[in-house]
């Protein structure tokens, strides 16, 4: 016993090193720390199975959405075939594709959209791609608010943040966390698109592989761009509060408030009331109601909306960081 104790002590003494000058790495500490934190965040997401939950939510939702869409189309085609006393295809999509190629359908879409360029764009897109865009724009923000809003607040609650706050700036920490979440969202958005692709491929007749793949590839960056202000909002809630449940509550509360602002803004603006200018101005501070402009990746509306959404992401994040910067941890 005594000898093992002695050998332990001598071993411990041997591993003690004198103080050496710090190695400062790349010379860009903020960027370096940000990337380290983002990578650790990804690792944590994997380890804590948070990523698994997100994958299940996004991919499961995507698979269910694509499958549901194919069922709705199939049912629509069956009923139409029954009415016309014709034979429906074995797989859904055959009649829809034939319908899309008719001049009357083109005229109908042009009349509905009221813009020839936009109508032609819609006509070129496979329906599953449009459905992916609509579903992502509608549901993704709420999923992001759910999965990302406790990123920082839980670490404040458990005081885990203190280990990091000792070693890097709060800005690098917050940006690293946001970057990690953004990478996760981008990853699951891509996987969700892939899920739509493969489920549609398995279920639809006359499946245009190239057009669907291209349509989804071009949609993913727009879905990601529109998700950024919601990530900003989630980060705001996470930085403004000190526990996970409160931050989710703040995130959803803020989102509901902003959706009401968007609704009121559109209503008052269209109504031409005296508050039209205020309503128009308020509309710039909410990411809701912009998905329409993201469906068509051209024209000034798209670019203005893109700039506004990125601006809002920065604005929400900055507001949250202003609170985190000053708060006791």
């Amino acid at each position, binding site marked *: 016993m005594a000898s093992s104790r002695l050998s332990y002590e001598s071993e*411990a003494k041997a591993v003690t090193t004198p103080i050496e000058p710090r190695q400062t790495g790349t010379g860009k500490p903020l960027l370096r720390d940000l990337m380290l934190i983002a990578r650790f965040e990804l690792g944590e997401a994997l380890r804590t199975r948070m990523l698994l939950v997100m994958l299940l939510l996004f991919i499961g939702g995507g698979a269910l959405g694509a499958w549901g869409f194919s069922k709705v189309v199939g049912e629509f085609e069956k009923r139409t075939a029954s009415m016309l006393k014709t034979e429906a295809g074995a797989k859904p999509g055959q009649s829809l594709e034939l319908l899309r190629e008719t001049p009357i359908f083109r005229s109908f879409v042009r009349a509905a959209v009221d813009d020839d360029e936009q109508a032609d764009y819609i006509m070129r897109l496979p329906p599953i791609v449009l459905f992916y865009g609509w579903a992502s724009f509608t549901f993704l923000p709420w999923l992001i608010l759910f999965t990302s809003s406790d990123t920082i607040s839980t670490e404040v609650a458990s005081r885990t943040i203190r280990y990091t706050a000792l070693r890097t700036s709060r800005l690098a920490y917050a940006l690293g966390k946001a970057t990690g979440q953004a990478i996760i969202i981008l990853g699951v958005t891509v996987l969700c698109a892939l899920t739509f692709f493969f489920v549609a491929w398995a279920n639809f007749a006359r499946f245009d592989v190239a057009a669907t793949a291209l349509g989804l590839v071009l949609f993913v960056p727009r879905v990601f761009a529109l998700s950024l202000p919601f990530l900003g909002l989630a980060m705001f809630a996470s930085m403004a509060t000190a526990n996970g449940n409160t931050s989710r509550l703040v995130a959803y509360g803020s989102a509901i408030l902003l959706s009401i602002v968007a609704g009121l803004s559109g209503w008052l603006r269209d109504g031409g009331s005296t508050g039209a200018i205020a309503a128009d101005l308020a509309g710039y501070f909410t990411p809701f109601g912009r998905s329409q402009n993201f469906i068509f990746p051209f024209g000034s509306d798209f670019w203005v909306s893109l700039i506004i959404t990125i601006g809002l992401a920065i604005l929400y994040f900055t507001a949250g960081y202003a609170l985190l910067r000053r708060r006791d941890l």
Partner: protein
Amino acid sequence: MKTALSFDNVRKRFGNKVALHGFSLDVPTGALFGLIGPNGAGKTTAFSIACGFLRPDAGGVSILESGGFDAGHMKGRISAMPQDAALGRETTCEEHLIFFARLQGLERKAAVAETARVLSEVGLADRARSKTKTLSHGMLRRLMVAQAFIGSPELILLDEPTSGLDPRHAHELREMFGRSHRAGQTIIVSSHNLPELEQICDHVAFIDNGHVTRAGRTSDVTGTGEEIEIQLGGDACPMAALTAALPNATIEQLPEKNTLRIRFSPESNGPGPRDSEDVIGIALRVLLDNGARISGVRKGASLERKFLEMR
């Protein structure tokens, strides 16, 4: 005197509760400094302010003579073991420490080597790849200590580092603190374990009700140059002979444990002893010549007694 950490009239309030008021303290560079105080005295608040976790309402803090805490500026120079901060349960010891080391500016290879070193120091080398959720309380505590020593920071603050540890591991950590101290690091330890602090610290400060009540070298605080205690093995105690041999000293016979307490002034210019060794020599000679039995001699009072006397 160069200071590693300096508090100047710091004030901090949480709602109606004043945690620190008029808190001033200088920790000399290279010291192994003990922070002593009851629960709620303000030790953890002081630590948290030094580390930048909390912002003082008033007053100033200077760390390594470079002003207040700035994570970018202080990168890798200051470290701490926060008392109640959790580590991710699904992450391994190694992953945590490599991440912390890299955040301190170490490249990956150096971070891996440094992780192996500190894990070995705290006796967790064989648990490097264990998730923290599988560690016992004591192991987790040692991991928290290990992260504070990564990269050999100049200033390390440890809040109750040996709390809940078994005697062997507590001893090993004390040995580690001593080695780091000898290597030139400044270490500040807060603890309720006063014999432990007395054993390892060369400086101590008493904190009570949010301010420092006494601070200085441990030897000065415990009065090793002003007081000795002799524990007698029997009832015989030649008080008259002792008083005659040490005319400038105050001699008390304490009923508990049959102890003699001799207080003296080392600056005394009169005839008689000049330091504690002189006093011990004279007192023991008189006691033994008069048939007393000695079971122990101690220079100064214990930190525990000094602390209790202050309250």
